[in-house]
């Protein structure tokens, strides 16, 4: 399966920035969904991004960042962390580990449960809910994405959800809890201590992800959710930014979950028909 992940993400790997010189990222902790939406989509163009709400266990689990070019790979955006975003980039220690201990809401847990993987005991979940109006022309919304962690096997859970459904199907493969971008078995794509060394994100791979617009001109909700699994220590963070809406995809395409479900169901029906023959 890891090999498949590698193939699925090869486009992203190509897109990933050449490692620039690492410089400190600047973070500002905030759980204000309005400010976070503005940081995620500073110039949305025809599309609009509305920040609905944030759910966190600790007040400093979400925030915005700037000066990310030399470390994250893109200049600015937002952070969701299972720990304290204020610790990122300041060399706080060999690894980041802040435990707030809170359990997520039922609704957030139900989202996390859609991500295939081990464990359903979550803590230190951070979630931002956005509503995107893609405009009438755009077929895709794109954003930059980077994942940094000090935890592996089992990894913390992170998921993207469109209208409440897990958008983890890429190139026909459902991404599970053991994300390909932290896989130890994939050379150059995997987790190393350097990614979060002393709390400093160093040269993570970043991808441009492109969500397929479900229906032109129709609002859809996007939730980004991250959570600790099996314990609230040792942190993971995702960096998101550079939102845009375009007619064609700028990055790795994530199809609309309902579409992927229909494709899968159609495939299942086809297999059943074939098996009857």
């Amino acid at each position, binding site marked *: 399966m890891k090999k498949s992940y590698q193939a699925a993400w090869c486009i992203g790997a190509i897109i990933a920035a050449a490692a620039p010189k690492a410089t400190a990222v600047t973070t500002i902790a905030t759980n204000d969904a309005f400010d976070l939406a503005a940081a995620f989509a500073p110039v949305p163009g025809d599309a609009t991004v509305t920040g609905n709400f944030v*759910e966190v266990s600790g007040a400093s689990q979400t925030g915005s960042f700037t000066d990310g070019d030399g470390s994250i790979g893109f200049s600015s955006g937002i952070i969701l962390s299972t720990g304290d975003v204020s610790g990122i980039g300041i060399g706080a220690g060999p690894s980041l580990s802040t435990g707030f201990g809170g359990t997520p809401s039922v609704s957030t847990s139900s989202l996390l449960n859609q991500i295939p993987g081990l464990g359903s005991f979550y803590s230190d979940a951070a979630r931002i809910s956005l509503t995107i109006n893609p405009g009438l022309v755009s077929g895709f919304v794109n954003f930059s994405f980077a994942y940094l962690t000090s935890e592996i096997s089992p990894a913390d859970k992170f998921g993207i959800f469109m209208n409440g*459904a897990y958008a983890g199907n890429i190139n026909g493969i459902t991404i599970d809890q053991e994300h390909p971008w932290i896989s130890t078995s994939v050379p150059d794509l995997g987790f190393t201590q350097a990614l979060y060394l002393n709390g400093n994100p160093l040269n993570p791979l970043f991808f441009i992800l492109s969500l397929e617009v479900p229906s032109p001109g129709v609002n859809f909700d996007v939730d980004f959710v991250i959570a600790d699994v099996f314990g609230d220590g040792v942190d993971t963070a995702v960096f998101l930014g550079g939102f845009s809406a375009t007619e064609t995809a700028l990055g790795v395409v994530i199809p609309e979950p309902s579409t992927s479900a229909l494709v899968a169901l159609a495939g299942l029906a086809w297999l059943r028909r074939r098996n009857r023959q």
Partner: protein
Amino acid sequence: MKSAKNVFISGGIALTAILSVAPTLNAQDPGRTPVPANRLFPTGNVIFFHPDGAGINHWNTARLYFKGPDSYLNYDLLPNMAVYRGHMVNTVIGTSNGGATTHAFGFKVDGYGSFGKDGDGGVTPPTDVFINSLSGYSGSIMRQSANQGMPVGVVNDGNIGEPGTGCFLAEVRNRGNWQEIARQMIQGRPNFTDTRPWVIMGGGEADTLPSGTTLLHRNHNQERGQALNSTTSLRSDSINLEADWDTQVIGGLPSPANLVNVNGGTDIAAIGTDNAIVIKTRAQFDALVTALNNNATYAPRVLGLFAFQDMFNDRNEEDLIARGKSTADPVNFVGPVNNTNLGVRSKASRIILWGDTAGNPGHNAPTFAQMTDVAIKILDRAAKAQANVNNRRFFLVAEQEAVDNFGNNDNAVGMLHAMADTDKAIGVARTFQAANPRTLILTAADSDAGGMQVAAPYRDNVDGGPVEAAGGTVIPGPINTSSITTNPAFLNLGQFYFGFNSNNAAGSTNLPNIADGLEGRGQSGTTGGTLMFLSEPDGFGQKMEFGISWAGSGDYTGGIISRASGLNAGLLNSVFSARFDNIDVYRMMHTTLFGQLLNYPTGVQGAR
């Protein structure tokens, strides 16, 4: 037989399919789903418009008349919407006082007597009890906001103590307690140390000066059971609320006692230097506007009292004309004076719908939109000056009572102009919001006043071709309202009249004809009717005629659409798409002011 490979693939696809279907809680009615305590919503300003009595029928008609059937109002440009439900604990129709109490406190209450409390203190035995708001605070959402330090304000083109604004600041036994409502709005509630509102503007001078005091404004609408044109204060005590406002202590220091309202003397020059003022006339209001424009940080506490009771003249058209509330001013009115005049029909009415006649202090009072503009400007400045960052947002409740009261008097042209005024105020708010996106604009009426409907003539009633000399083609030809013949039954239920020949204003007479035109239905005893309303051009460039008929003069359940834009406005189309009621108005405002969407209190009444 399945191959092992096929089993694996089909199993994997099935898993994918299952995982791709989102499980959601109460997806059909998310507004009643318990809200996680750790869910944080963005906070900002709240501008709540309460166009009292405005159903979607009123909005549709205002659009026809002022913009054209293919155009749009500012109201139409509020992108989020939901159907509003206004029922109370004991009546399916939202009442002004019960609805406003629910908007202010987040609990359904007795619809008949509640005013900032639940129950009626005017019945035997009294049933009124104090209640906390849904947040648990001992007072309304406006009291909670103000006492936390946010600037708050109310604007009403009726008496400031009309329920739509009064229930946010006063807790009294019954809506008839005008004196105490005014006192609490200005001085605070008994046994509480309430922070005053920053802005209060509307009518209601009758309740703000000591007993026996001669007022600036006269009772030209014969209200409150008082003699026509009386100018005596209706307070029964020696409290001078205007002096109290004018000299209030702000920041530990008393405001200069300029008393710009002194009857017969206008210290307009003081406006611009005084930080707590009372204004009562157009001249003083304009001086305030000038002072605000000349000083970008000037944000005085303003008490505006522009009428004895209401700023509008809520009688039917015929009665207003009979009482001399009309003008032949050719600048402001060009059009039919009688049924035979087929000249260009002006949107301006010759009927004086707001304010006193020329030469009196209450003449040409500020409009609702103008008061809203000033209130937003002042509250925004005050909010941005707050030391505590959590209080740098404001809360304004703006009620256009005239929509309801003109509707309750079956005054179509008055209702239409009230709608236009409200729409201008929404435009003012939208302009502010464009520069201050952390702002929620929310509209909600609580009932449908008069149950108005548009009535258009049938083809066989057309008695002429296109004749309008200027302004485009008229389809069909101009006729008057007497040609609209559907006639509902008349039913007198005491407080309100259902059907026609109704008129509940003191001293006015019954009227003929089914539909209102430009000047109502025609004079008593005649069947002549008046010229019909003329729409603005449609997409084909055509203007079309219509009359306005009424279900009666009461408040009806009707069809009310709440619209919103800006911060958290999307809740209308998501969380509240299946159900949005008067409690949810409170919940949306609380969400934006305090960052928390509180759980809906299903089957729970308030208590303190």
